[in-house]
């Protein structure tokens, strides 16, 4: 199925509002959908017999600082059954707590688990209802989001120390 027909099928199911923008670039469509619908859209894309996006290639994030809404989460889809691809994006604004919030798609594609963990630690986006919301690659003690645009590339001694601070390393030792 070609890219336009996939989009049309999405529209026929959810109505015009589901497509906030659609960009065709080198025969690949990127459709931006509302954040609240992401779970429904993804489930439809996977379960609809004519689309059957049974393989989630990748979940990643983009920081559009200083634009608003600041973040974007991108889903690359592939259908092993039909051999077609599609790209879904959704905009995520930064909430009061300094993080973005969006529903996790792990219930639909279990493979999203690690992808979302990485996106979460790198951009500070919380995936709601994620089954295992730990960090994936970064040390557990860090509280910074390195792939954000306002993060200094080299980090800082305070935020990204070589070793965990003593208070983290030895919680059983009395601190002075």
């Amino acid at each position, binding site marked *: 199925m070609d890219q336009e027909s996939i989009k049309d099928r999405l529209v026929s199911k959810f109505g015009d509002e589901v497509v906030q923008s659609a960009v065709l670039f080198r025969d690949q469509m990127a459709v931006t959908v509302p954040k609240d619908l992401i779970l429904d859209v993804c489930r439809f894309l996977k379960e609809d017999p004519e689309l059957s996006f049974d393989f989630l290639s990748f979940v990643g994030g983009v920081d559009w600082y200083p634009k608003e809404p600041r973040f974007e989460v991108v889903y690359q889809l592939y259908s092993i059954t039909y051999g077609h691809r599609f790209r879904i994006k959704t905009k995520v604004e930064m909430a009061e707590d300094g993080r973005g919030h969006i529903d996790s798609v792990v219930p639909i594609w279990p493979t999203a688990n690690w992808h979302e963990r990485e996106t979460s630690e790198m951009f500070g986006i919380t995936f709601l209802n994620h089954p295992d919301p730990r960090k994936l690659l970064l*040390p557990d003690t860090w509280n910074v989001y390195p792939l954000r645009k306002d*993060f200094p*590339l080299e*980090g800082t001694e305070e935020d*990204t*120390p*070589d*070793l965990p601070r003593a208070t983290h*390393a*030895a919680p059983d030792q009395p601190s002075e």
Partner: protein
Amino acid sequence: MGIERHLNDTVHVTNLEWFVNWARKSSMWPLGFGLACCALEMIATVVSRYDMSRFGMEVFRPSPRQADLMIVSGTASKKMIPAIRRIYEQMAEPRWVIAMGACACTGGIYKNYAVVQGIDRHLPVDVYIPGCPPRPEALLDGIFQLHAKVMKEQSIKNPRSFPIKAAT
């Protein structure tokens, strides 16, 4: 046959310190410890073309308890540092460290938040080998430098001991 032919049934005298150093440098067992792309060159140093076993080092030990030399070959990420330090602590003394490649020496091309800017921030490095990656010849040369250094050590009078600094 062999060395006996040269000993001529007599008593031989040598300096004990020299002898200990000679024994140490002639059978220095490295730890199989590759962190990134440089590890491939370290592996190439062991295979038959370069054949590190010519210098008494053919056995790469999988356990730090049996190793004398840690070749830090590659990029040390900060998350890896607690493990590297623990492995170093588990090695029996005397122990030596070679920083192989630009990454292990200084952080190399990775001047960023995730990579340790030189393994000498955490381990007492004996020999630095520049290059990205160093060729096997360079690693062998670094090992010879280390051998020369071992031969100069006061292994009896002033044995080396490098306890690792406690985490701050």
